[in-house]
């Protein structure tokens, strides 16, 4: 808030000082500073202020059971860390995000390479693969819950080939996190696909022609030329996959609800559950942990990916 008003003021002052004297050399800004105000007021009030509140209320005993809010220092952090949930959920969230970043990009890149040519069939397939992107993540979660039941359609399909298959996909404490990661990647792979397709379109035909004349195989052309030139698309896709899945909720809620045995409980599931129990301060503490985790993971990742773009 303070920053936006301050700049408004300096902008106006500058506008008032300069007229006439510098007109020929430098015209006064023609974009009024107050154009910034409404956007930044709403952004500040409904995005930045709650984030600052996070740093305050995580240190209180705010809950639905008391009317007063008291300061308790680090007790929330100690409590959550002591019962082990914090660290497990944190690990689950990071694994989830890393898994989604890997699979969403593998699927998206694979689809882009498969459907690269502009044929009628490929265009139809691209449309089909984009439909999950348009659907609600909650709906996608329910679809896979039905599909992955032990007596469900997927096991029946596999059973056609193996003569009977019985596996409780979403009740396996060891692998369920991976299945949920794959569902998340399934929902969003269409978006990754079209970003990679756009990247592939920007590669000039001359470069590919030259590599073919030099006798490069398809795989060499891909590894040495096409993939490196996809760096901007990769940056965008990895960053959005990482950040989007750190903030995921719907798919996990609809498939496992955080189970089995809390093996798929990501931070937003915990926040939702704890908030529902009226333990607002604890939920805030986790929200703060999520905030810090994302900041710590995102900035170095984006920095590294950007630097990789520049080197190439």
């Amino acid at each position, binding site marked *: 808030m303070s*920053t936006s008003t301050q*700049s408004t003021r300096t902008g106006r002052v500058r506008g008032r000082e300069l007229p006439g004297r510098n007109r020929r050399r430098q015209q006064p800004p*023609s*974009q*009024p*500073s107050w*154009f*910034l105000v*409404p*956007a930044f007021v*709403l*952004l500040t*009030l*409904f*995005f*930045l202020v*709650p*984030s600052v509140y*996070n740093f305050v*209320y995580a240190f209180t005993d705010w809950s639905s059971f008391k009317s007063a809010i008291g300061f308790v220092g680090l007790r929330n952090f100690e409590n959550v860390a002591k019962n082990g949930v914090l660290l497990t959920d944190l690990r689950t969230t990071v694994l989830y995000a890393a898994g989604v970043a890997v699979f969403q990009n593998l699927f998206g890149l694979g689809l882009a*390479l*498969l459907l690269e*040519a502009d*044929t009628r*069939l*490929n265009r139809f*397939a691209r*449309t089909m693969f984009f*439909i*999950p992107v348009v*659907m*609600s993540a*909650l*709906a996608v979660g*329910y*679809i896979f819950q*039905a*599909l992955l039941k032990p*007596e*469900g*359609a997927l096991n*029946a399909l596999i059973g056609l080939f193996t003569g009977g298959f019985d596996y409780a996909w979403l009740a396996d404490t060891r692998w369920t996190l991976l299945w949920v990661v794959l569902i998340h990647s399934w929902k969003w792979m269409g978006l990754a696909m079209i*970003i990679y397709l*756009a990247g592939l379109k*920007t590669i000039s035909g001359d470069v590919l*022609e030259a590599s073919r004349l030099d006798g490069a195989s*398809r795989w060499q052309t891909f590894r040495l030329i096409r993939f490196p030139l996809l760096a*901007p698309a990769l940056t*965008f896709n990895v960053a959005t996959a990482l950040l989007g899945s*750190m903030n995921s909720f*719907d798919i996990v809620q609809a498939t496992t609800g955080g189970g089995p045995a809390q093996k798929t409980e990501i931070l937003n599931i915990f926040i939702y559950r704890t*908030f529902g129990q009226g333990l*607002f301060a604890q939920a*805030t503490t986790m*929200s703060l942990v*999520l*905030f810090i985790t*994302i900041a710590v993971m995102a*900035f170095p990742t*984006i920095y590294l990916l950007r630097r990789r773009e520049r080197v190439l």
Partner: protein
Amino acid sequence: MAPEGGGGPLHAVVVVLLTAVVVGVPLWLVLVTSVKSQGEALLPSLALPRDGFHLVANYSTVITDGRLGAALLGSVLVVAPSVVFVLLLASMASWVLARRKGRWISVLYALGISGLILPPAVVTLVLLLRQLQLAGTVGGMVMVYVGIYMSTAIFFITGFIRTIPPELEEAARVDGAGPVRTFFTVVLPLLRPVMATATILICLYIWNDVFYAFFVVGGRLDTLPLNLFQVASAGAYLNNWHLIFAYVVLMSLPLVLVFVIAQRRIISGITGGAVK
């Protein structure tokens, strides 16, 4: 050189099979289960219904029990103003952020796109809304979405404005148009492509959002995803698959139809924004 992954019968077979299994099977499961009887839908399978199609019965049950009318109204009431506000306010700010230079502008721009990376603080957001007497209201929900997606809009629109030359605006100014008039008659019409992209993405996010809706209006306003959650949670052990999937079909239909009709423009819009 012809792009790889081109024609050839083997390629066609791979594409058809992959599409059918990976996307076709889940979507078929939804459609076929949504017309089955409750008994047959208990164990959702890919088979056609054996005891007749229950299309009308299931869909009308969902429309009445799932309060589809109210949910549709609620979703539209929230989505439409959110998108209008976020795009209008973000493009005003983006014009200044893209055209001016200086340390303050860089700081403001960084602040403006901070929401691209950092997650919204959803719990304290509820506290703030209570303090502002906005908890549980459509207005509160709209402002929350505007705050959350402002960064996305600023990021896309600022990037776009930087690619268009400022001469047109200067010409308008020389012709005597004030800044406000220049913005609305010259700048805003130029932004049409990026507006289309941003509208689609933000519509998609808000139309399908259930997480923030839970916290801000949960129980006090019907929206499509909130009501889907209720329909799904109503059966004791999530057994009403016929109703869940009928609701999924009805709820997905508007966006899927819009997408299938306008897919070329949508896809070119999204890709134009992401990869330069």
